[in-house]
């Protein structure tokens, strides 16, 4: 083992000792000196492109970019001076000069990093204004791309390459004509994009945003002919509070339910119910495959980003992927079948809204496989967490002071196993709780499967169930998933079951989640940990913690579906996949 060398330097006269190879920006950060930056992102590679983070280093002719410049012994750094203030101001103005001036009307108003920098650095007038780039907005897919607002920081390119391994985005053309786009500048819907929305998350401006569904929801709510129901994904309760100023990791399930009622939804259900149902269906599918020793490993299919990725990049894995619909689609389907029947409502008059942490869910909802026989989708509208936050603000809901409400029955009853779906490893843990008891017929002593918890990219473990060794793989973030799958393909690893979540950290860090508060950033492992903790605490506080013990589920099979994996289950709760073109290159 090599001992880490330390380097001592002075930043603004403050002595600081840091490991060698630390950058000036990181060293400054360690003593709470914030150097303004833009293209820099702590969890992505460093490109040093925007030049906002320049600092002066003694002995250097020109200022250097602190995000990329390594510290050196005895170095003397100045992070602030009249010259630096002017240079940073000018650089940010140059970016603004090629950017639309519609801040007030922009969806990122208030959360835009460029807007904040322009204010902080004192750009109060335009000195160099000239021709501005012109591009149409690409609204072809759930992830909207507006190159006019793009400042070419390249974060989206890096997240798509380095974290997701999708490589859909690249800087195209050259110089002033640079534009971030898919191959051939094609529309997102015609590209290999998997709609995970991580580009939306890391974008400092509104160059990437989600397709807006709020208008259609407002419209439905005001249509007297419609019965409008909503269900919310497990991860929402752990994150929506952030949109109203709560600390990350504050669970706000009760307030969320109340808020949705106030918004005018006729019924407020819980996607958790779909999650519990998924566990029953998927564990049945799994056990049957294990017994027959065929089509293993089984790979989960809850994450629509992963499903898109699989169809484009790993179509050979289609036979291994669970045929279970996602919790959202299961529940939406039941709402227009089972629930409609129970309530005696015309299913075509039911408008189902799903609140999801995810942009890919918008794509999933529109897939032909998820259309009702009358040609309309089972899920009529998908709202991201961010969109719901805005809707509630628009309606003037005083979120802080809301009383706790409870989900409507019966599709609002759920186990703690469902809550943890929102964190990476959660689906696996929920499935294990049920599979263990199904196989052994014995009650689990400890429900917590710690080895699949945590924000690491790839987690592996083996558990013994009745003498049977089950090898488990869990991956989050698609580059991690690729690494894991490639080891499977090479024969290096053999798993029985694999959980894959497209987003790094799972749904709590989905492409539709609130922009993090000050001091935290997208992809921040700490943020993922806090949000996941909220879910685990909800699970821990419940007495019902296993999907198969959910009485509402039992009732559903008894009254409607028959047995798990029954013919009707297959018709309503399962789906199929197809290889998609253009095929992705791994």
């Amino acid at each position: 083992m090599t001992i880490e060398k330390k380097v001592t330097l002075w930043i603004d006269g403050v002595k600081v000792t840091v490991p060698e190879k630390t950058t000036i920006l990181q060293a400054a950060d360690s003593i709470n000196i914030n150097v303004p930056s833009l293209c820099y992102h702590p969890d992505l590679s460093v490109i040093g492109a925007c030049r906002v983070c320049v600092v002066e280093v003694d002995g250097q002719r020109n200022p250097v970019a602190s995000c990329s410049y390594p510290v050196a012994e005895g170095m003397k750094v100045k992070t602030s001076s009249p010259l630096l203030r002017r240079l940073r101001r000018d650089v940010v103005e140059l970016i603004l000069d090629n950017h639309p001036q519609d801040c007030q009307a922009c969806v990122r108003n208030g959360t835009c990093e460029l807007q904040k920098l322009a204010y902080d650095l004192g750009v109060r007038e335009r000195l160099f204004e000239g021709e501005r780039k012109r591009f149409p907005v690409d609204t072809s897919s759930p992830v909207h791309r507006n190159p006019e607002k793009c400042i070419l920081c390249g974060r989206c390119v890096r997240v798509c390459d380095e974290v997701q391994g999708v490589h859909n985005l690249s800087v195209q053309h050259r110089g002033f004509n640079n534009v971030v786009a898919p191959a051939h500048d094609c529309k997102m819907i015609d590209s290999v994009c998997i709609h995970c929305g991580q580009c939306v998350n890391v974008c400092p401006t509104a160059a990437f945003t989600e397709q807006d569904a709020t208008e259609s929801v407002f419209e439905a709510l005001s249509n007297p002919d419609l019965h409008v129901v909503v269900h919310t994904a497990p991860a929402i309760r752990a994150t929506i509070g952030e949109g109203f100023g709560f600390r990350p990791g504050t669970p706000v399930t009760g307030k969320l339910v109340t808020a949705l009622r106030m918004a005018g939804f006729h019924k407020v259900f819980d996607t958790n119910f779909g999650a519990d149902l998924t566990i029953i269906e998927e564990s049945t599918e799994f056990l049957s495959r294990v017994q027959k020793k065929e089509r293993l490993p089984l790979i989960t299919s809850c994450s629509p980003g992963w499903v898109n990725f699989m169809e484009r990049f790993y179509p050979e894995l289609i036979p291994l992927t669970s045929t279970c619909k996602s919790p959202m689609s299961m529940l939406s389907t039941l709402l227009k079948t089972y629930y409609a029947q129970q309530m005696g409502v015309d299913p075509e008059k039911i408008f189902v809204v799903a609140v999801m942490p995810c942009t890919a869910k918008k794509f999933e909802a529109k897939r032909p496989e998820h259309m009702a026989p009358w040609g309309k989708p089972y899920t009529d509208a998908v709202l991201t967490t961010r969109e719901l936050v805005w809707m509630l603000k628009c309606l003037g809901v005083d979120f802080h002071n809301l009383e706790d409400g409870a989900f409507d029955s019966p599709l609002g009853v759920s186990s703690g196993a469902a809550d943890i779906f929102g964190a990476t490893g959660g689906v696996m843990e929920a499935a294990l709780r049920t599979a263990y008891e199904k196989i052994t017929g014995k009650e689990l002593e400890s429900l917590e499967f710690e080895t699949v918890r945590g924000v690491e990219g790839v987690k592996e473990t083996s558990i013994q169930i009745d003498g049977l060794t089950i090898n488990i793989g869990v991956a989050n973030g698609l580059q991690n998933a690729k690494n894991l799958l490639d080891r499977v393909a090479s024969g290096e690893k053999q798993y029985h079951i694999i959980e894959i979540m497209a987003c790094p950290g799972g749904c709590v860090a989905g492409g539709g989640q609130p922009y993090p508060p000050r001091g935290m950033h997208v992809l921040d492992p700490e943020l993922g940990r806090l949000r996941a903790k909220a879910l685990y605490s909800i699970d821990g506080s419940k007495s019902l913690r296993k999907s198969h013990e959910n009485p509402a589920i039992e009732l559903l099979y008894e009254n409607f579906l028959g047995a798990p994996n029954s013919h009707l289950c297959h018709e309503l709760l399962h789906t199929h996949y197809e290889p998609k073109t253009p095929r992705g290159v791994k």
Partner: protein
Amino acid sequence: MSNPMEQLLERREKAEKRLRREKFNAKVRITVGSATCENAAGAPDVFKKVEELIKRHGLKDVTLSRVGCTGRCDMEPVVTVFSQRTTPVKYIAMTPDKVEKVFDSHILKAIPLKDLAMPNEGTQNTDFSEERLWGDARLTDRFSSVFNDVHFFGKQMRMTLRNCGVIDPEDMDEYIMVRGYQAAVKVLTDMTPNDVVNTVTKSGLRGRGGGGFPTGVKWNFALAQKNEEKYIVCNADEGDPGAFMDRSTIEGDPHTVIEGMIIGGYAIGARQGYVYIRAEYPLAIKRLEIAIAAARQAGFLGTGIFGTNWDFDIEIRLGAGAFVCGEETALIRSIEGERGMPRPRPPYPAASGLWGKPTVINNVETFANIPVVILDGPEWFSSIGTAKSKGTKVFALAGKVCNTGLVEVPMGTTLRDVVYGVGGGIRDGKKFKAVQTGGPAGGCLPESYLDTPVDYESLTAAGSMMGSGGMIVIDEDSCMVDVARFFLDFTQDESCGKCTPCREGTKRMLEILQRITSGRGVEGDIDKLLRLGDTIKRTSLCGLGQASPNPVISTIKHFREEYEAHIREKRCPAGVCAGLLTFSIISEKCIGCGACKRKCPVPCITGKPKEVHEIDQARCIKCGQCFEACKFDAVKRS
């Protein structure tokens, strides 16, 4: 088995025998310049004609071969006739017809045709003989023995271009005859890598690509890296508009670059070399391919080169039209098959370059100097030049100067000596206005700076830079604001777009310059240009971005009044900026021929035949067609 140097010398003997048989022993030896520029001027037809005439007359003792370009570009194609002990005669601007004349007189009757030869003939004795040319003389002496009777060449010192125009670039034996590959063998057999690095350091050789970083220091840094895998790269992505010495060197003497790279590779511990060359240089690529193949065939490249246990090979990688790829980190990205966008340094390529391995990048001219440093010694090399800049520098002299072409002079020669001495002064009796050096990264220097010596420090101190060696002479007919606009247009178009200041800032500077040259400049524009220029200089990611405002800053510094005339008086003193021009007809001179009227595209010229015509200023689009059309100087441009 004999040692590598003996083997090489044996090979040289064999080469000599062959060449004597085929080329040198002839009564008359004819060489035809055949670089890209010569070919453009018609060299292929000339070559064919000579070939045909030799055949037609059945001449057994006349030989013909191709050589590279001498650098006397405005007189191409050049045909040189060697006849034993007399100074070779250089025929210029040859055509098949002139070849016929030369043949009839010089070849058949031994009467040289002075009128067709390069002027300044015979002013200096060159002490020419074939023995001297192919013998063991100092490497730099061969060129002079053929060409120094010509004033243009006599003022120069050929070190980089020592073999260009002398040897056949496609015949490795000729390179071997001029002591080719002896430096490489000496290094491989007699010297440790440390010795080589020390020798190069001692010579004071600095990078000729523009930066002027000491080559020995760079090599030493790479040598110190502990890594099994290292690379050496030759930067032949000569992108400066107006500079073509690298093309000429490769087209005229490709083996010297290969030899330089072999030496560099051995010095730093790299077994693989790459030549990154512009795709726009097909002939240079072809000659380099031929040279590499010949070197491989001879065992000079590949495994166990020259019979030693050192392995070294070279691969050619093509550029694809991106100026920024001359920047070394961008070049690395491009060789890796990526967009050529620079990355922040440190780490420097010598520590982490191609595929993260230690990599040394030198340009063509630098490598071409290495064999000289080794064979003629660092002491001799460092005796040429100034205290801090050693050796020679090649310039591509162009623009409004009498003698255009490639010029190689010792460092420290003054700009005046280059422009007036070698270049012969300004063409057409016009007045000198400025000399632009350093390409788009450089600056324009006015007459008061003509005594600046050409070396790295002096040019930088004067507000320009050495760059890769473009030198454009500008006369009174050029508008300096327009020249600045031209360079900004180039830089802006060639900006890779990665960093904000270069991508956005150069665009804004260009817009301001366009505003000024079209008559829409406003008070304060000069200050904005200077402020933006300063921001770009200080914050850009790479050297090219940092240098991009130089043409503007230097022209404002030296020619501010021209900017002010454009902005305040809406006047272009040089009469170049179309937006600021007016065309009018001088009634005394107009004979009413109607030529201007016929050419006018608007049309805005009226007048009956044989009567004075008139231009309607309100409708005139200032295209200048009338000005060009008038044979009586009756159209006034102001």
